């Protein structure tokens, strides 16, 4: 209990898709602070609000269905309650699926914290033929129950005031709590006896005993450490005899929920087929669902190229280019390396960062709409049977598919996947999706190399690329994850119209994260690459980059590439389209693209051309993608693993293509 004037700590908990974040956004407004939970890749969102003269610190806890399935979200929620001692936790529940939502409440009630239940989406429940009396539910549960329609902002202030009142309430908090199923009651008492005096604050013996019976991995490890060996063996014997408790305890909680809701919930009439049921006839259909998904994706790509690409060009020509020109003029007296460092290193890097912003905003908007509307879950459900074949999860489909536009949002989009293994696999595979920049390089170079045969060659290259992607997925799943299967369990929530505010916030925070984290890495890497291309002083031909390219010449020879092509590949690290510009400089074709096309056609054999194009498709991801990989994996090790993997794949595939062409006699004939 806090005295007036002292800030009060309130956590907001809830299952996924219940409007928890909407409530959090409404309450905290612009005061939000976004960080990470210690040691986790999950965002911690916190904000403050003043209510009746008292400052409330509000923490948005990650959405979680229960507190017993070993996921980081669950551990965060329970550690927050046990370690940070919030004055009150507000649990937001979806009234349209009340029983399932109260399961989390049943688990929260076992922890030492005061609870307020916010009953959201009462309007939706009503349209489903469910009538709920909040005051009756409050009386049975013995805790405050506040009605909410968060999408319209209704009921939020009374909810906060009730939380504040409960935080200051002098009387002890004594709600109804679920009891353990009868066959395990004696075992629970025995366990409590064994644990007594060994359980350190703030854990509580009854809770620990229940979690042991449920087979909670973390609590089991902790208890093993707390207890002397003799008592631990007694605990293990009890747990073995009550192995079925893991199934009985959840059933017991639902029995309790049934008793709690009996008087408060009525279903006065049978609901008609709901909007969700009607839409799902199309959205989860194996054929129509897939077509719908491709139509939505086509729309996203169209918007990207209609809005994102022009905005990108505008930012570059109206923002970055004048800045670079200005820097060059302002520094005309300075040594050339200073001008170069600033204009071609720093500002070029910053330019790369800035020009990604429009594309990212379009993609995050798309991802946000899909996720909040409920379509994302349908896409995952429909695509699961295909993704499963390459060791992936249905949820990996949309992030990967968006990768055809740009790999950066594909890598960042992987954060929508909760399960750690499929998320990492998606991050590692995303750079293998041929992005629009790589497709543009292919579109420019295949006609130069192959004239009339360009289209089949380009299509063939994309097919090779996708085959490598699929094979890598299967191989990584076997080798790195030892073929361990991640269960596919997904809730298909009711369809919702996404809230514009929540969407704007989603787009803004994700873009900001990119600017802050990935942006720094991009600028640093750009400066390094500039230095490699500029130093020790003459021109690109004699730079460290060129020397490096020449040093790699033996490797290049195995692929049929001369050092100029190797350097062009290396230059594509900054941005994939740089491959063309670099070839232009090194083949001295001048600025005009036509000149380059003719030069290339005259100097390069088809086998070499195919080898170069294959390598370009699979070569190490661009600097922005690498930065995004680092940001999302929080690990340079996994990032370097991914980059090395692509390097090896590119070299290997190019070598195979080159030697097959040579065997077929395409090595010397010119197109």
């Amino acid at each position, binding site marked *: 209990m806090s005295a007036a004037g002292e800030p009060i700590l309130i956590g907001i908990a809830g*299952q996924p898709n219940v409007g928890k974040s909407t409530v959090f956004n409404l309450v905290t407004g612009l005061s939000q602070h976004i960080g990470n939970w210690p040691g986790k890749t999950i965002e911690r969102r916190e904000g403050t609000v003043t209510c009746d003269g008292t400052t409330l610190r509000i923490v948005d806890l990650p959405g*979680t*269905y*229960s507190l*017993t*399935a*070993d996921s980081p979200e669950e551990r965060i929620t329970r550690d927050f309650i046990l370690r940070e001692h919030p004055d009150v936790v507000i649990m937001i529940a979806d009234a*349209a*699926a*009340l*029983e*399932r939502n109260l*399961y*989390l409440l049943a688990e929260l009630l076992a922890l030492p914290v005061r609870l307020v239940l916010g009953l959201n989406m009462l309007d939706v429940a009503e349209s*489903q033929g*469910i009538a709920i009396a909040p005051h009756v539910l409050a009386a049975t549960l013995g805790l405050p129950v506040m009605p909410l329609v968060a999408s319209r902002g209704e009921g939020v202030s009374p909810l906060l005031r009730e939380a504040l009142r409960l935080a200051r309430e002098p009387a002890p908090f004594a709600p109804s709590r679920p009891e353990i199923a009868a066959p395990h009651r004696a075992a629970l008492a025995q366990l409590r006896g064994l644990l007594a005096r060994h359980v350190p604050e703030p854990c509580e013996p009854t809770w620990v005993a229940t979690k042991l019976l*449920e*087979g909670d991995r973390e609590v089991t490890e902790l208890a093993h450490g707390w207890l002397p060996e003799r008592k631990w063996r007694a605990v293990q014997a009890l747990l073995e005899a009550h192995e079925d408790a*893991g*199934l*009985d305890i*959840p*059933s017991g*909680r*639902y029995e309790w929920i049934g008793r709690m809701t009996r008087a408060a919930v009525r279903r006065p009439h049978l609901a008609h087929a709901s909007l*969700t049921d009607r839409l*799902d006839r199309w959205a*989860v259909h*194996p054929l129509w669902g897939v077509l719908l998904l491709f139509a939505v994706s086509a729309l996203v790509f169209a918007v990207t190229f209609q809005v994102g690409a022009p905005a990108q060009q505008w930012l570059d020509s109206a923002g970055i280019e004048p800045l670079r020109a200005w820097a060059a003029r302002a520094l005309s007296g300075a040594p050339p390396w200073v001008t170069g460092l600033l204009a071609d290193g720093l500002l070029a890097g910053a330019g790369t960062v800035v020009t990604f912003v429009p594309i990212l905003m379009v993609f995050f908007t798309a991802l946000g709409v899909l996720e909040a509307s409920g379509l994302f*879950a349908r896409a*995952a*459900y429909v695509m*699961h*049977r295909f993704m*499963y074949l390459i060791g992936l999860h*249905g949820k990996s489909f949309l992030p990967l598919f968006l990768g055809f536009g740009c790999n950066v949002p594909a890598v960042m989009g992987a954060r929508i996947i909760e399960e750690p293994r499929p998320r990492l696999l998606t991050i590692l595979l995303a750079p293998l999706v041929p992005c629009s920049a790589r497709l543009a390089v292919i579109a420019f170079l295949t006609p130069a190399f192959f004239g009339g045969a360009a289209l089949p060659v380009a299509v063939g290259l994309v097919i090779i690329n996708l085959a490598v992607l699929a094979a890598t997925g299967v191989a990584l799943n076997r080798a790195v994850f030892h073929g361990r*299967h991640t*269960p*596919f*369990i*997904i*809730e*298909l*929530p009711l369809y919702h119209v996404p809230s514009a505010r929540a969407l704007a916030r989603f787009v803004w925070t994700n873009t900001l994260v990119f600017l802050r984290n990935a942006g720094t890495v991009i600028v640093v890497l750009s400066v390094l690459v500039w230095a490699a291309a500029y130093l020790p002083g003459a021109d690109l031909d004699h730079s460290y980059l060129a020397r490096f390219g020449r040093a790699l010449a033996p490797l290049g020879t195995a692929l049929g590439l001369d050092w100029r092509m190797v350097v062009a590949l290396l230059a594509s690290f900054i941005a994939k389209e740089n491959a063309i510009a670099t070839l232009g400089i090194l083949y001295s074709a001048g600025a005009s693209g036509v000149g380059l096309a003719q030069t290339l056609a005259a100097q390069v054999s088809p086998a070499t051309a195919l080898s170069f194009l294959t390598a370009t498709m699979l070569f190490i991801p661009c600097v922005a993608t690498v930065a995004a990989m680092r940001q999302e994996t929080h690990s340079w090790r996994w990032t370097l693993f991914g980059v090395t993997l692509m390097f090896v794949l590119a070299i290997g595939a190019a070598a195979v293509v080159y030697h097959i062409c040579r065997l077929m006699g395409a090595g010397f004939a010119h197109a």
Partner: protein
Amino acid sequence: MTTSDVGSLAVLPAGTHAVVRRLRGGRGLAGRLAGMGLTVGSRLEVLQNRGHGPVLVRVRDTRIGLGRGEAAKVLVEALHP
């Protein structure tokens, strides 16, 4: 209402109502399903099952998609109206 024997959810056709009798696949799977409303004793309705690909069920007003492997671990008793 008559009942038939216990069998896997993966073989139930769409439209069937059933009661969950057992969950195989360890506590991890059972724990995750419990939070979504699917426990021993709960009643479910199969919304989609095409013999390949995931299975869609409705349980406690919640639509849950389950991979075939997961569906096979849910043992149910079909209810025949």
